[in-house]
């Protein structure tokens, strides 16, 4: 009884949601987004790793390529009515494209509205991992980055050279 009485003078932990928003840490696993690289190019390269990692199989996509060989998803769909926000997709992603962000306000009356397409997922930001650009480390040549121009790469070999 005494204890209960004392609690009356403690700082309140309950916040008046939704008028007042909770402060969530940046690594909080909420709504999933697709981010962009520092050059504002789409980060996702359509590698299917997130889809394979997803324990409830709620990610599906189709990879395609632009005329210069850069891969990106033709469509990218997450069925949030199935997603369990485990973050495995984020962990599997080799490009930091897919990220879980501190936003959980996704409730819908109609379950169909929980199916997010690429236009709903892609944001104009690098998200939690600024600075990383997959195509700068990958060996694949794309528009604006030729062979030998990635980080830590030598210029392409001249195969007709006889110099040892």
């Amino acid at each position, binding site marked *: 009884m005494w204890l209960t009485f004392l609690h009356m003078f403690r700082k309140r932990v309950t916040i008046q949601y939704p008028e007042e928003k909770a402060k969530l840490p940046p690594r909080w696993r909420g709504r999933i987004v697709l981010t962009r690289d520092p050059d504002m190019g789409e980060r996702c390269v359509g590698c299917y790793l997130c889809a394979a990692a997803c324990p409830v199989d709620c990610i599906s996509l189709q990879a395609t390529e632009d005329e210069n060989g850069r891969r990106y998803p033709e469509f990218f769909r997450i*069925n949030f009515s199935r997603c369990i926000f485990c973050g495995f997709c984020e962990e599997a992603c080799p490009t930091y494209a897919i990220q879980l962000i501190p936003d959980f306000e996704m409730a819908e009356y109609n379950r169909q509205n929980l199916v997010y397409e690429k236009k709903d997922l892609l944001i104009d930001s690098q998200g939690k991992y600024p600075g990383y650009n*997959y195509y700068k480390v*990958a060996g*694949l040549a794309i528009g604006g980055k030729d062979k030998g121009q990635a980080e830590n790469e*030598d210029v392409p*070999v001249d195969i007709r050279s006889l110099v040892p």
Partner: protein
Amino acid sequence: MATIVIDGKTYEIPTGKNLLETCLTLGFDLPYFCWHPALGSVGACRQCAVKVYKDENDTRGRLVMSCMEAVTPNQRISISDPEAKAFREQVIEWLMTNHPHDCAVCDEGGSCHLQDMTVMTGHDYRRFRFKKRTHRNQYLGPFINHEMNRCIQCYRCVRFYKDYAGGKDLDVYASKSNVYFGREEDGILESEFSGNLAEVCPTGVFTDKTLKEHYTRKWDLTMSPSVCQHCSIGCNTVAGERYGTLRMIANRFHGQVNGYFLCDRGRFGYEFVNADKRIRQAWTGESVVSPEQLLNHMAPAWNQSKKVIGIGSPRASLQSNFALKALVGADNFYHGVSDNEHDLADLAIRIFREGSVRTPSTREVEKADAVFILGEDITNTAPILALAVRQAVRHEPGKAADAVHIPGWHDAARREMAQQSKGPLFVTSVHTTKLDELARDVYRAAPDDIARLGFAVAHRLDPQVPDATDLPEAVAQLADRIAQALLAAERPVIISGACCESGCVMKAAANVAWALQKKKQQTGLVLTMLECNSLGLAMMGGHRLHAAFNAVMNGHADTVIVMENDLYRHGKADEVDAFLSKCQRVIVLDHLLHKTVSKASVIIPAGTFAESDGTLVNNEGRAQRFFQAYEPTDIIRESWRWLLTLGHRIGNSRMAPWQNFEDVTLAMDREEPLLRGVAGVTPPSAFRIAGQRIARETHRYSGRTSQQANINVSEPKPPEDPDSPLSYTMEGFHGQPPSSLIPYFWAPGWNSVQSVNKYQAEVGGSLRDDDPGVRLLEPRTEGTLPYFVGVPERFRPLDDHLWIVSLHHIFGSEELSAHAPSVAQRVPQPYILLHPSDAAALGVETGHPLVFTIESQSYRLPVKLSDVLPVGIAGMPYGIDGVPYADLPEWAIVPRGNQRQNLNDLSYAKRHA
């Protein structure tokens, strides 16, 4: 058998193998790159190191490359020795110093042998701090993508392409760590087997370009065991689907038929399944109808017709042909092939059933030590057979290597020893073939002259065979040489077939084989056929196409069902026109739009092989089953299922008890004497392993709660398969099913196609529980056919005439594959091939149009010249768009005077110059 000790445990093993094969056979995971079960060992990659100990007292041992070390009895080795392990990890680390950071955008990823081996050795962190060497890529044509940065210099590609498949235009350039695998310059890879690079290369340097167009990881495909539909060999394939379209065809190892390889027609021809020309709706007259409306329309029409006849197809499954035969009645069932083709298929069956010689499988051809080819250009008509012949010519030179105990797997040493020498191969054909370069003798002549040579050879083997009289001296000597070489061999093989469209050539080939059989027990005779189920159709019995034409023209019948067949490919245009316009109703069941479909009054959308279950009989008489890769969406169904539904609706009593695939197959097995045994090709559809179906999808399959969520967020129930023991989901059995039901190859730690090792009883040998398929044709031991008589006359050119023969092209001559966009890029333009002296006599040159008629069908084709073609003969490409059908070989009338006048039509000449 011998015993060896691996890591302290004793194993019983067969001798004659190398340590790597032995360890893999025993189930150990030992990494390797350059060794390939079909290519043998060269010891280039240093990845397969193990420790070998002198005896039980030796504790230090020495590192050896297991692929270069023969097993010896009582050998003691260690795979898990720390030094051996460290060595293997080190080798991968070196290989990876230049590897790009590409897995995410690499098509090999998820089925990459390099990934698997890297994980297997435990290398996980790149310590190398210097720059990576890079390479520029090349354009290699519509089939293969090139990404040279990913190369680990294992040399498998050139060893396959050049040494194994005889390609000329892929090689290795530059030196040390800069070595480059590619062509001299950008350009289309010329080999018919280039697609295998995608599977042979353990990395993502060479990948399937058609898959890239709609890229899907291996783990995301719904895969089924399938059979190639593009020639009579019937290679086993894996068909992979995603999002309702067929994404890829890969090799499905078969120890007897195709081994580890496919040809490019088979690998890349699949895209006709996704073509825009697919028929996806049912039509009656001008309107699209639902299945119900269709049946409502058809049933009364059926009863009103005087008589309904059915025309089957050599490219449709046995079940579909059988269902059609049951629907219209045996008397009204016609083969949809030209009369010549019909006769040739019948002849082949007679030769195999009533003759004394067995037809060997492709693998057995590989082991032949003398080969005599009569009239066939097998590189273009049965490509995998040509690949087998390329291996066969290595046997005789290999005998020297055997004598000094160089084992069969020691590839580099054996090739070094053999140098350029080749075993006996004799090629006779109308025009050049790619195998000519390997042949001891090449004879180019008219089909009749080839048959005469065959008779002459057979006569030399057994004087009972009638001889060809007054052969030119050179040809008689050639016959002597061939006969001698065949007699000197242990396992001679004679190859001929229906593609040169000459019965006497096939008869001559049979005579040679039969005569030889009397002296050489192990003689084989291979006859190639024109289409994937030509033999199966012929074994079912049925009337000729002309009889169908007559039945309608004479008013006995007024309705025709044409199933999976473009009659314009098998009959002369004017005859087919007349036939189709005389019919009251033309009902066409097919999957691609073609000229016959355009004349139909009812069009029924049939499933392609990817959407169907069925059985085909290949040229070896082997019945093989293919499984539906995916349930088609619209109203597309297997032809046999449509016919069954129709049969039920019109009250066909014979079909009434048949409900599914198995019922049809069992009925066929019962009722068709030549097809007895087809029901045993695969386990029944009720077959289960531990109560489970076999999963078509891998356990890593992704996206199943999302891929259709855009349509409806509640997932639909996955389709059920009433026709097979396979499931359409990832639930089910993922282990090793019976060999005929393997949907894909995968084993823990082995994601790439190399996992096939784990499915073989002995690495490189047959699949566990034997290779799939049932051979239906076996030779007789007594009461066999007598020798064929009737040696043809010598071919004599005729004035104002040309004897037209078909020339086959791997890309273009087969109907379905030609609709695949990648293959379509390789199809030749129409042409007529002439000898320069004929061209000079006619006053035409290269590119000029030649006008001629074959049995009232007139042609106008640009001229190509070849001085190896016999004079008086002209070659016309078979089955290519723009070259109307003629029942070849046939005389063409070439009015000499006319040709000048054609030349005046300059615009034409320019177009084709």
